[in-house]
């Protein structure tokens, strides 16, 4: 049961990874990194139950808290550097 769930989460991670590599805009990549983070939280929780040590949920908890940070940092970077390229032209081609 847990094994199947973790495999499914791995599939989702793979799809998000493809999107992160393909892009095309910077926002797409940021979105997939964010999604990757939440999937990591789920994967770590499920692995905790799979290996019978559910007391390791602390790691998932850290990710749930800290994953926020990188998204905010990138958004702040875009606010600060108004001219930073976000590759929007490519997506509209």
């Amino acid at each position, binding site marked *: 049961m847990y094994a199947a769930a973790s495999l499914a989460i791995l599939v989702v991670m793979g799809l998000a990874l493809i999107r992160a590599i393909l892009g095309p805009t910077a926002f797409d990549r940021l979105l997939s990194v964010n999604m990757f983070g939440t999937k990591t939280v789920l994967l770590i929780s499920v692995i905790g139950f799979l*290996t*019978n*040590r559910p*007391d*390791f949920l602390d790691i998932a908890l850290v990710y749930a808290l800290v994953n926020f940070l990188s998204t905010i940092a990138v958004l702040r970077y875009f606010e600060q550097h108004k001219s930073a390229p976000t590759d929007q032209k490519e997506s509209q081609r």
Partner: protein
Amino acid sequence: MNWVGHYNYWGAIFLMMSGFYVVISRGNLIKKLIGLNIFSTSVFLLYITMGKIKGATAPILTEASQLTASPQIYSNPLPHVLILTAIVVGVATTAVGLALTVRINERYGTIEEDEIRAKDDSL
């Protein structure tokens, strides 16, 4: 077949070599630092791989193992200790590298290796 059991080492070596490739083939200093980060992660992976025992659990005592007669097998805690500190030290040294890059950019106006070298030669 003995060699199948080495896949984890090979994965680590592949990552190590990709990091190494980035460091020696790319001229951009920030890209080089990204490559160094990949390299260091691969080293961490190699160490942790060596510490793992099949069927063992994380080296934190479980309450169940103290009650039952059969002793619980734990993975080797020593590589974990070495790598745990190495990760934090790694981020600190990366920050120093980035600071150097920023200063180089202020002085030379570029962070591409060959342009920096050209400017050095023309002086």
